C-alpha cells in the first residue's frame, strides 16, 4: 500500500463523567478507503470530531505526513486537509451551491479582497463536472435532494484539496442509484490518492467499498486489518466482544382478529397506495431502506402528519385522526424514531416522562396527584427495569438505553391495543436491545398488535410474524413468516421486485 498519511497514537478524550476515547490508534494510508467500525457510542463520532477540530483531545498525538498536528478549530483541520461529510447534511439551505462549497474559504481578488464570484462559479462548474453531477451552481441548496446535498459536500471537500475525506454513514438516506453514484465518486477519490475514512453500519457496504478497517469498542482501540482478509463474523465479534448468538425471544404468536386495516394510504411526496392489515397479537415488521416512507406511514396513522388519500380503519370503523391524542384515544401507542427529540423530554424527570401521556386519567379535575403518579411510575419503571438513582432524576442524565426504556414504560402505561415502534433499538447498547426485544414479544403475547419499523434485517427476521417491505414510498412486498427470507426481503427493499404479494 501507499505511504502513511495519518497516524493517531494513544488518543484520549474525557468528557464530564465519561471517557469517550481511551488510547485509540488509527493509521490511514493514501489511496485507501478505511472503514471505521464500532457500535453507536463506541467513540467513532468523538474521533471524527477531534479529527475535524471540533473537540480537543485530552491526550495523544495526531501525525499527518510526518508533522504532528494540533487543531485549534475546524478551520485548522481543513487547512491540514481533513474534511468531513456529515451524517446530517450540515449545509446552508438558503444559500447557493456555489456558496455552500466556498463558505469559509471564499475566493477573493488578491488585492481588493473583494469576493471573486465569477471565479467561484467557474470552479464550482469544474468540480461538479468532475463529479459528473447535473447540478446548477446557482441553485439554492434547499431545493436539492438529500443525495445531491451529499454530493455538494463532496465537491466542497475537493475544493478544499482534502487529503482525507471522512464520510459518516453517507448512504443512509440514499436510494440505490444514488448509492452507486456515491461509490463511483469514492473510487474516483481513492484513485486520485486521497484517503477516505468511511463510517458505516452496513457490512455489505463495507465489504464492497473498503480496503482496510479499524474497530473501536467503548472508546477503546480493538483491532485493525485488511478487509479482504476478514469476515463479517470476525468484525462483529470485535465490535461486541463476543460471538453473536443473539437469540430473538420470539414467542409462538396467538394471532387474533383484524384490528387495523390500511387501504391505499398516501401522502404527497412521502408514500402512496400503502395497504396492509394488522391483527391482535401480531408483530408486523416494516422493512426498507432509510427514506422508504415507513416512518411517514406510521406518523400518518398516529395523526402527526396528514394523509393526502386512502383510508385507515380501526375495528372496521374509519379513522381520521386530527392529532396524536385521537390516535391515543383509540389505543395506539407510538415509540418514535428520534428518541432525544420526540421520545423523551430530557429536562423532565423519569416520573413526569412516564405519566405525561396519561395525565388526564391520573388527575382529578385537572389537578395532579403526586402519589398516584409515583405509583404509576414505579409500576412501569420497575417493569422496564429502568436503572436510575431515583424516579425524580431528569431523563437527560440517563443512558440512551434507559431513555428508551422510559419511552416504552410511558406507552405501556397507557395499555395500548396497537403499539408502533419506530427503530426502537437504534443507538442503544446490546443489553437493552435484548430487553426491548423481550418486551416486544411479551406485549404481542398479551394480544397487543405491534408494528415494528426497523432497518436491521436480523431484527425484522427474528421478531416479525409478517413483514411489509417498502421502497421509495411503495409497498413492494408483504411476506408471511414462513416465507421470510433475507435475500427476497432485501430485493424487495431495493425495489427489484414489483409484484406485491398480499396476504
Amino acid at each position, binding site marked *: 500500500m501507499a505511504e502513511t498519511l495519518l497516524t493517531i497514537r494513544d488518543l484520549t478524550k474525557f468528557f464530564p463523567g465519561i471517557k469517550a476515547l481511551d488510547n485509540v490508534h488509527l493509521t490511514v494510508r493514501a489511496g485507501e478507503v478505511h472503514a471505521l467500525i464500532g457500535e453507536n457510542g463506541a467513540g467513532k463520532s468523538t474521533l471524527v470530531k477531534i479529527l475535524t477540530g471540533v473537540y480537543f483531545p485530552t491526550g495523544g498525538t495526531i501525525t499527518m505526513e510526518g508533522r504532528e498536528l494540533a487543531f485549534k478549530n475546524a478551520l485548522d483541520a*481543513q487547512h491540514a486537509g481533513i474534511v468531513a461529510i456529515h451524517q446530517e447534511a*450540515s449545509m*446552508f*439551505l438558503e444559500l447557493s451551491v456555489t456558496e455552500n462549497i466556498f*463558505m469559509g474559504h*471564499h475566493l477573493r481578488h488578491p488585492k481588493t479582497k473583494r469576493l471573486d464570484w465569477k471565479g467561484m462559479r467557474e470552479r464550482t462548474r469544474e468540480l461538479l463536472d468532475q463529479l459528473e453531477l447535473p447540478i446548477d451552481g446557482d441553485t439554492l441548496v434547499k431545493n436539492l435532494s438529500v443525495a445531491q446535498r451529499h454530493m455538494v459536500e463532496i465537491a466542497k471537500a475537493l475544493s478544499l484539496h482534502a487529503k482525507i475525506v471522512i464520510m459518516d454513514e453517507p448512504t443512509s438516506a*440514499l436510494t440505490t442509484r444514488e448509492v452507486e453514484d456515491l461509490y463511483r465518486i469514492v473510487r474516483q477519490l481513492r484513485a486520485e490518492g486521497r484517503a477516505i475514512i468511511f463510517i458505516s453500519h452496513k457490512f455489505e457496504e463495507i465489504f464492497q467499498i473498503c480496503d482496510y478497517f479499524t474497530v473501536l469498542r467503548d472508546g477503546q482501540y480493538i483491532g485493525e486489518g485488511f478487509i479482504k482478509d476478514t469476515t463479517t463474523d470476525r468484525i462483529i465479534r470485535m465490535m461486541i466482544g463476543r460471538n453473536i448468538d443473539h437469540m430473538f425471544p420470539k414467542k409462538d404468536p396467538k394471532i387474533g382478529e383484524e384490528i387495523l386495516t390500511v387501504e391505499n394510504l398516501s401522502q404527497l*411526496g412521502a408514500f402512496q397506495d400503502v395497504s396492509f392489515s394488522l391483527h391482535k397479537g401480531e408483530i408486523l415488521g416494516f422493512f426498507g431502506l432509510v427514506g422508504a416512507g415507513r416512518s411517514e406511514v406510521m406518523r400518518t396513522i398516529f395523526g402527526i402528519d396528514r394523509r393526502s388519500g386512502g383510508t385507515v380503519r380501526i375495528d372496521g370503523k374509519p379513522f381520521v385522526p386530527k392529532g396524536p391524542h385521537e390516535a391515543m384515544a383509540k389505543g395506539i401507542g407510538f415509540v418514535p424514531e428520534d428518541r432525544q427529540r420526540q421520545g423523551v423530554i430530557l429536562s423532565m424527570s423519569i416520573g413526569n416522562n412516564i405519566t405525561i401521556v396519561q395525565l388526564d386519567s391520573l388527575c382529578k379535575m385537572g389537578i395532579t396527584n403526586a402519589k398516584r403518579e409515583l405509583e404509576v411510575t414505579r409500576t412501569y419503571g420497575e417493569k422496564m427495569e429502568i436503572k436510575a438513582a431515583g424516579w425524580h432524576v431528569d431523563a437527560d442524565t440517563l443512558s440512551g438505553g434507559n431513555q428508551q426504556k422510559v419511552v416504552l414504560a410511558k406507552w405501556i402505561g397507557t395499555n395500548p391495543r396497537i403499539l408502533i415502534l419506530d427503530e426502537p433499538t437504534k443507538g442503544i447498547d446490546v443489553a437493552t436491545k435484548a430487553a426491548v426485544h423481550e418486551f416486544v414479544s411479551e406485549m404481542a403475547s398479551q394480544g397487543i398488535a405491534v408494528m415494528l419499523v426497523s432497518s436491521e434485517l436480523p431484527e425484522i427476521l427474528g421478531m416479525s410474524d409478517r413483514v411489509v417491505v417498502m421502497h421509495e414510498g411503495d409497498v413492494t412486498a408483504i411476506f408471511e413468516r414462513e416465507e421470510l427470507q433475507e435475500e427476497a426481503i432485501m430485493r424487495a427493499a431495493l425495489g427489484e421486485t414489483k409484484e406485491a404479494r398480499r396476504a
Partner: protein
Amino acid sequence: MRESQVKRTPSEPLLQRIVKILLDRREASLVILLAIMLVPIVARSPQFLSLDNINRILNDISILSIVAIGEFFVILSNGIDLTVGSIIAFSGMASGMLNEAYPNVPVVLILLLGIGIGAAMGSLNGLLVAYGKIPPIITTLGTMSIYRGMTFVLSKGTWVTAHEMTTTFIGFPRRTFLGISALIWMAVIVIALTYYFSRHTRPGREIYAIGGNATAAKFVGVNEKRTRFMVFVISGTLFGFAGSLWTARYASAVNEMATGFEMQAVAACVLGGVNFAGGAGAIPGVVLGALFLGVLNNALPVVYLSTFYQTLVQGMVVLLALIINTVVDQRKTRKLLAQRRAR
C-alpha cells in the same frame, strides 16, 4: 430524491425564467406589490409621482433605511436588536448637546461622535450576546432601558431645541448636491457600503452562514462569537449615525426621541422578506421595505386618512406581508414534494 435524474434544462423560455425569478426573489414581488399599490394612489392624485413628492418620500425614509439595514444584519444572524430607539436617542442627544456647547465643531465631527457612540453601545450589546451568551432579545431588552436611562442622565431631563443649535448643523440634511439632499446621499452611501459588505466580503457572507446554520458555520471555520459581536457593532454604529442625522433633520433632541422606532425597522425587514429564522434576506429587499412604508405613510392623506391611521395601516400591511410570505413558502415546499414524486 428523484431529482438526481432530472437533467439541467439549459434553455428555458425567457418568459418562464422571468416568472421563476419573480417567484424566487421576494424583492421582485415587493416591487410588483408597490406598483399595484401606486395605481389607485396616482389615479387619485397624479401629484404623488411628482419629483417634489418623490424627493419628500425619499427624505422621509432615509433614516429609516439606515436603521432598518442595521436591524437587518442582526435578524440575518438570527437575533433581534431592540435598542434602535435608545441608541438613536442617546447619540442624537449627545450630538445636539455637542452642537449647542461648541457651535464651532464641524458637522463631520458631530456625525463621527454619533457613529462612535453607536459603535460603543453596539459593542456592549455584542459582548453580552456573543461572549455572555445572553439571548439577543433579553440583552437588548435590558440595554434599551439602560441606554434610554443614560440619555436622561446625559441631558438631565432637558431638551435641545432648534435655536440652540447652529444652522449649519440643522441645515446640513437639506443641503443639496446634484439636486439630491445630503440626507438622501447619506442613506445611499450606507446602502452602497452595506450592500458591498453583505455581498462581496467574507465577514458579510459569514453572517449569512451563522444565521442559516450556526453549527455548520462553525465547521467551516466561521468564528461565531466574533460574527455575532460584529453584527451588533454594525447595527449600533448605524443606529448611532442615524441618531445624529435625526437630531439635525428634526432640529431638536428630546429624551423620548425615536421611542418605538425599532418596530418600524423590524417592519421594514419583514416587508423586505427577511426571514426571522435567520440566514435569508438581502439589502435591496430591506430598502424596498423601507420605501414601501414611506410610500404608505405619504399616501395616507391622498386617500383621506389622517396620520393617526399610520400605525394601524402599517400593522395591517406587515401582517399581510407575513401571511403572504408564509403561505408562498409553504406552497413552494409542497410543490417541491410533489415534484419529488412525479415519475
